[in-house]
């Protein structure tokens, strides 16, 4: 039987530089193929260039969809294929939907264009599609604008739109990455159901191996533009042939922390009692003219972080976990008591005292691209803390300390001097290197507590593992305490001694991390843990 899509020797290049090197794969009717790789491996470019959706790309090879070579079609003919035989779901549904039209209108547009339905029939079909995607109150949602829907609902709308033309092949580009963990499973189940009902093939592009395992029939692994391995999912996962696949499969974070129970007499280094953080928000209507409402992002949180240990805070976006992190850094006004090493935030009487307190608590943020100032060199970025906290150092000493910090985070080998690094700018570093720089910047002032706000979620899986290893090692050597904010159960499992589960600003479950993950009591925690396996 001829496959639905048969890609042979696909090459994609930009400005004469090839980023995808002669890859070949095939998808049968009704098959679910996952294209896996890290960022920059060329997986998205490969898939989207099939429909010539990549700008300025030079595409070579052939891609036969039901016998027709997509790459040889004229732009006009290709337009008939796009959205008709092949539909695409993008990663970020907010930007993929037009904000000026209701979602109903946008789905109806596809129906009218591709299936030639009259507006009355289209409206009925829109409802049918929305019902199929499981959106609650589909009639009301059809009249909603994209910004009025939640992330999960928007992605369901995108799916409905993709299905509107009854495609034979659905390309799903990281369809769940922008969604909360608990939604990812639901979205995959939905895709599976719809795939079965419509008998269409799905090309899933993802970096998430959990998704692949749950969803796909076959998997193709890409590395640096080469397709290094493909085969049935069970086969590849059980017996990976290529070294890169093996590395990818082994990149689940590994737990390597000091497991001895905390000594009961040692006072905690961070302690929060009845911590509350709120933001003023505008009130609707006339009332908003005179006063502002208050949104409680964190309510009545209590926790203690012992020296040398890690407290994990897990929850999905909007649960207040990042607010908690900023409060712990003393960057947000809060109610209740938040004490760092005998001093409460806000009680410091002099600037010098505040500065001394700031030195104790440092931070590493999620996004390694926005957390380093783009116009400063590595030396300036890492050395800045010294200028504040150790102004007595001269330039040479400061440089020495910067190099030491770079060695600590593994950017410099023990014998190297910093000449290759100090004058670099952040844009010249990879995501993992930037995250190491952020850690070096925090470490250089010798803090006792590091607030890690999703330190690895913007990184590729293999890099994520390296950074977690680094953090584990630093904790062992220096007895650092971590307040680890994450949405990733795997990271908690690898790093945390204790865990708080947060939802809508409230801590709903707490306890030793491994116990909580092994036997969650709250239904929401159960859902989180289940979604991650």
């Amino acid at each position, binding site marked *: 039987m001829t496959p639905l899509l048969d890609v042979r020797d696909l090459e994609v290049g930009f*400005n004469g530089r090839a980023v995808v090197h002669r890859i070949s794969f095939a998808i049968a009717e009704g098959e679910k193929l996952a294209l896996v790789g890290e960022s920059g491996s060329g997986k998205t470019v490969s898939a989207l260039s099939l429909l010539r959706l990549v700008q300025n790309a030079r595409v070579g090879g052939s891609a036969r969809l039901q016998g027709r070579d997509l790459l040889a079609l004229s732009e006009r003919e290709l337009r008939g294929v796009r959205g008709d035989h092949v539909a695409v779901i993008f990663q970020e549904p907010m930007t993929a939907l037009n904000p000026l039209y209701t979602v109903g209108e946008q789905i109806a547009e596809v129906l009218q264009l591709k299936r030639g339905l009259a507006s009355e029939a289209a409206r009925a079909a829109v409802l049918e599609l929305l019902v199929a995607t499981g959106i609650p109150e589909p009639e009301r949602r059809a009249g909603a604008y994209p910004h009025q829907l939640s992330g999960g609902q928007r992605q369901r709308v995108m799916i409905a739109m993709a299905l509107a033309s009854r495609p034979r092949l659905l390309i799903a580009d990281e369809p769940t990455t922008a969604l909360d963990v608990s939604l990812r499973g639901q979205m995959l189940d939905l895709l599976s159901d719809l795939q079965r009902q419509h008998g269409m093939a799905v090309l899933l592009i993802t970096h998430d191996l959990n998704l692949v395992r749950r969803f796909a029939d076959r998997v193709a692994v890409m590395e640096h533009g080469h397709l290094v391995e493909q085969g049935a999912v069970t086969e590849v996962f059980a017996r990976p042939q290529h070294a890169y696949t093996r590395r990818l499969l082994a990149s689940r974070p590994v737990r390597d922390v000091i497991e001895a129970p905390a000594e009961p007499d040692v006072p905690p280094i961070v302690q929060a009692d009845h911590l509350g953080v709120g933001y003023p928000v505008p009130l609707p209507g006339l009332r908003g003219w005179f006063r502002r409402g208050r949104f409680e992002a964190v309510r009545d949180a209590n926790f203690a972080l012992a020296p040398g240990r890690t407290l994990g805070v897990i929850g999905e976006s909007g649960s207040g976990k990042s607010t908690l992190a*900023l409060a712990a*850094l*003393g*960057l947000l006004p809060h109610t209740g008591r938040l004490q760092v090493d005998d001093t409460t935030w806000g009680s410091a009487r002099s*600037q010098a005292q*505040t*500065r001394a307190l*700031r*030195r104790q*608590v*440092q*931070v590493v*943020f*999620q*996004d390694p691209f*926005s*957390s*380093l*100032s*783009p*116009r*400063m*060199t590595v030396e300036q970025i890492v050395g*800045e*803390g010294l200028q*504040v*906290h150790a102004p007595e150092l001269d330039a040479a000493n400061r440089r020495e300390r910067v190099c030491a910090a770079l060695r600590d985070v593994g950017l410099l080998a023990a014998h190297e001097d910093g*000449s*290759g690094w100090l*004058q*670099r*700018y952040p*844009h*010249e570093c990879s995501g993992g290197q930037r995250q190491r720089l*952020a850690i070096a*910047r*925090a470490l250089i*002032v010798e803090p006792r507590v590091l*607030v890690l706000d999703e330190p690895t979620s913007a990184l590729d899986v293999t890099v994520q593992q390296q950074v977690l290893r680094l953090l584990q090692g630093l904790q062992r050597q220096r007895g650092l305490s971590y307040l680890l904010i994450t949405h990733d159960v795997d990271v908690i499992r690898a790093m945390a001694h204790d865990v708080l589960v947060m939802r809508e600003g409230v801590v709903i479950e707490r306890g030793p991390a491994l116990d909580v993950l092994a036997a969650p009591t709250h239904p929401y925690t159960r859902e989180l843990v289940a979604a991650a396996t």
Partner: protein
Amino acid sequence: MAATASLSPSRRAWQRFRRNRLGYWSLLIFCTLVVLSLFAELLSNDRPLVVRYEGKTYFPMVQDLPETVFGGDFDTATDYLDPFIREQITRGDNWAVYALNPYGPKTLNYFARSPNPSAPTADNWLGTDDRGRDLLAQLIYGFRVSVLFALALTAIGTVLGIVTGAIQGYFGGRTDLFFQRFIEIWGSMPELYLLIIFAAVLSPSVGLLLVLLSLFGWMGLSDYVRAEFLRNRQLDYVRAARAMGLSHAQIIWRHVLPNSLTPVVTFLPFRMSAAILALTSLDFLGLGVPPGTPSLGELLSQGKNNIDAWWISLSTFAVLVFTLLLLTFMGDALRDALDPRKQDT
């Protein structure tokens, strides 16, 4: 990666700017013209640069010499365009080095051969205006006044705009609210009327004009800087700097400001050309610089009044268009160079 590959973002922007040939050459030509106009006295002056007269050396450019020095009858300032004086100082061993164009901006040529305004002649290369002043000299000095005025206005407006924008954007909240309302009130004042009133009440001068235009010139830029600050202050590197314990001034100066200057730099050439145009139009209306100051706007107005003296309007217009074009090309190139979406290719 070699150490030579490490280029700061501003250096990379400069390289992108240099790759835009039109913009780069515009910058070079403009700078050359400005530097030349700074030495306008050497190029266009009614006094000779050096005179050797009867064994003595004089520098009339910096000396005021009575005619009697050169054998004249009166104890008044020497008119070096007087054929008699010319004869005196070039006779025998005497010699004089005249400027390239032997007229200053205010020089009236009493010895002109054709009536005013005179069409271009061998004496007055671009002709004279209706008072008999040399047009080329007027244009050179007028260009200098315009550019220096525009530079000053741009500098003041930029500094004011950055400071107010930074304060609003960084501190936000009530400070922002207050400043925004103030800008709305201030911006709704009738600028032109105020200028007319002040021009009537006070004696017009370049300084007064600079102050008045500066009072209103900072608001547009301030909004852009404010928006940049609002965006940048919530980025993680600013949070990290706060967590590090840096003071507000340090954060603004080291972190937020360098990353917020893109709109400022991009707008510089356009602000310059706007300033030149503003001065020109005020002069054209007679509300600008005091009478007697060489000015492009005043020349345009003369061109309008003497429509048959085509050389006045044509040459002034050409200078104005050329200047503004150079600035616009530079602005375009800058905008492209600083566009974050442009990649180095």
